[in-house]
């Protein structure tokens, strides 16, 4: 029973395929280049088929490339990023949920203004926050540590996570809350019993968003860490900054794929839940 509007099927598929091509071109190019040798790419242009499959690009980048005095490839930086991103994502999501819950279901005077201020945080460009963070981390004695970076990402992520969660929780039916409050439930009881079980869709959205954002972040990762504790974004830049070498297209492409693998996998497997979470009323 057609209850949805329909358009001509051919036109639909043709358009979708055309745009899919547009979206896929960069990925395909990088994937092909990761299997070509740098000389080949330098001579033959960035778009082309590999003459022979240079799997060594991957193994070399992962475990052999020399950055500073460590010739362990990008592998250690990969795990550094994991160590930083996972705690930051989990904590900022939880705190964002609490914040969103507080702001949406426990109204207090000025809560709209408070929410407005937090949303403003989403717009602040990161360049202007660099020096203040240095001062803050220095005073907290967390400079140059992974914990310091985690703290930065938590606080900055709070703006987004609160935004998402709060917009989601406003749609929790008021009757549920009223009934719970009549039963004598307090702040935590309601959160635990009612709000949290309703949260998985938005939590997944938030986790995916945060994981991707923090994993791909460059400026703070480089400034607030050093040496072998740097995140993967720093290693990527080390590979591409052309100070004393010609561009290493082949290795660079392999490194890009390796570095993007976690976030790509997250979207590949979590994309469905991402969409479901948004559909469940994440945005109002």
């Amino acid at each position: 029973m057609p209850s949805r509007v329909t358009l001509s099927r051919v036109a639909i598929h043709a358009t979708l395929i055309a745009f899919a091509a547009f979206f896929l071109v960069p990925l395909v190019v990088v994937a092909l280049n990761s299997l070509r040798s740098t000389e080949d790419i330098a001579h033959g242009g960035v778009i082309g088929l590999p003459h022979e499959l240079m799997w060594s690009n991957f193994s070399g980048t992962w475990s052999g490339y020399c950055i500073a005095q460590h010739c362990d490839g990008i592998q250690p930086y990969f795990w550094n990023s994991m160590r930083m991103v996972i705690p930051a994502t989990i904590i900022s999501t939880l705190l964002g949920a609490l914040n969103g819950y507080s702001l949406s279901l426990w109204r207090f005077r000025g809560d709209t203004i408070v929410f407005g201020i937090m949303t403003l945080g989403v717009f602040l460009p990161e360049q202007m926050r660099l020096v203040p963070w240095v001062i803050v981390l220095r005073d907290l004695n967390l400079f140059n540590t992974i914990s310091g970076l985690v703290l930065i990402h938590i606080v900055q992520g709070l703006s987004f996570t609160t935004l998402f969660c709060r917009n989601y929780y406003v749609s929790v039916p008021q009757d549920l809350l009223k009934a719970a409050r009549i039963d004598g439930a307090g702040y935590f009881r309601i959160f635990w019993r009612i709000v949290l079980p309703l949260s998985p869709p938005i939590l997944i959205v938030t986790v995916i968003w945060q994981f991707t954002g923090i994993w791909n972040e460059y400026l703070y990762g480089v400034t607030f860490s050093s040496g072998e504790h740097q995140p993967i974004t720093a290693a990527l830049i080390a590979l591409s900054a052309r100070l004393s070498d010609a561009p290493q297209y082949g290795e660079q492409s392999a490194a890009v794929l390796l570095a993007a693998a976690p976030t790509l996998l997250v979207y590949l497997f979590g994309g469905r839940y991402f969409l479901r979470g948004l559909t469940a009323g994440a945005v109002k």
Partner: protein
Amino acid sequence: MQRHHVGRRALLAGAAVTFAVRRLRAQPASKPRVTVISQWSSGSSGAAMMALGKVFEQQGGVWEHNPVPGFTTEMMNKLRAQIIAGDPPAASQLKGPEIAAWSKIAPVVDLDAMVQQAGYETVVPAELAKLSKPHGHWIALPIQAYRINTLFISKKAADQVGVTKLPATWAEFNAIAGKMKAAGITPIANGGIRWDDGMKWEIALCGISLDAYRKMLTELDEKTLKGAEVLAAFRQCRKLADWSDPGIASQDYTTFVPRFMKGEMGMLLMGDWAAGIYKRGGFKVSDYIVGPAPADDGKIAFDLNSDEFMFWQKPQPEFQEGQKLLAKIVMGKEFGPLFCQITGSIPVRTDTDLSAEGFNDQQREASHSMGEAARANRVVLSLAHNMAQTNQITAAMIDVLTEFVHDNRITPEEGQKRLVAAVDNVR
């Protein structure tokens, strides 16, 4: 009964380990230590730092090099952050007038005594010494030098138009370029990023009139800024821009190396580090002709770029010892061969023996040129590589130059006017 036995043994073992660990931990605290921040995380510069680190450790020190991936700005960011946080590195890579500027924000180490003991000042070109002692005391030590005004010609391209030696003046250069253009070769193989654009202009001015260059860039002399030599430099720069590949914007010159070697592109005006890039790209010295860029008055001219280590005051004795050790190594005669054979740069000491195999002819020629130019007072500091002025003034000038190079609607006269205005704005 058995449990007792194991318990005691475990206790003994534990105590032994704790003892040993404490002993081990005690040792590094007394070894000279140094923490270094630089931008050299990979490639030949990274390899050279690794070699330096090995020597440092061989002489009994603990080496900790924290390169910041990216370019100089990221490295300065990190340095600034460390200084604000109260934890400056023992040594950091800095250059040019930035040494003077940065030395005002945190205490630095006075190296006068060590320099005098090593007799270092006499073997270092005067320009470098001046930069290293901005307030009269040595606070930084030069690591390596590069010549900016170097010209590379692709052998294949040269053969195609019948060129066998380097042009001596800009007029000859322009003639060769014209021939190449007619033969279908792109005459200029430079890239199109900011410092490259600045470099094209400065090499032009350097060759047109070294005195005008010096007056303008070191003193920001207004009359020279508005003068004929600067205008001529803009005109030459416009020619260079027109002869470049139209797709150079935001491209680094290294992307054109293959085409240069194949003979599709003819001439490169670049610092002599390009020779290192060629070598790492697998090309031979016979693939190109190299030498000083054109100089209209026929005299020797050396446009200098260099890197230095600046030493920040640290209260801990192991860092102070480490700094002394590093200073000793850097000032030593063996440092030049150690570092510069890997990076392709010129050793700072004018008395370095370059006959070793690790050096190539281009390095020998450039080093000889530096010594001679120093004696004849024909050494100037590079604009585009932040040697002549602070980043603030340099960036304002390069804004004008990079716009000029990429927009041929701007006439040389207009370019000069804008340059004058830019300098006035930041003076």
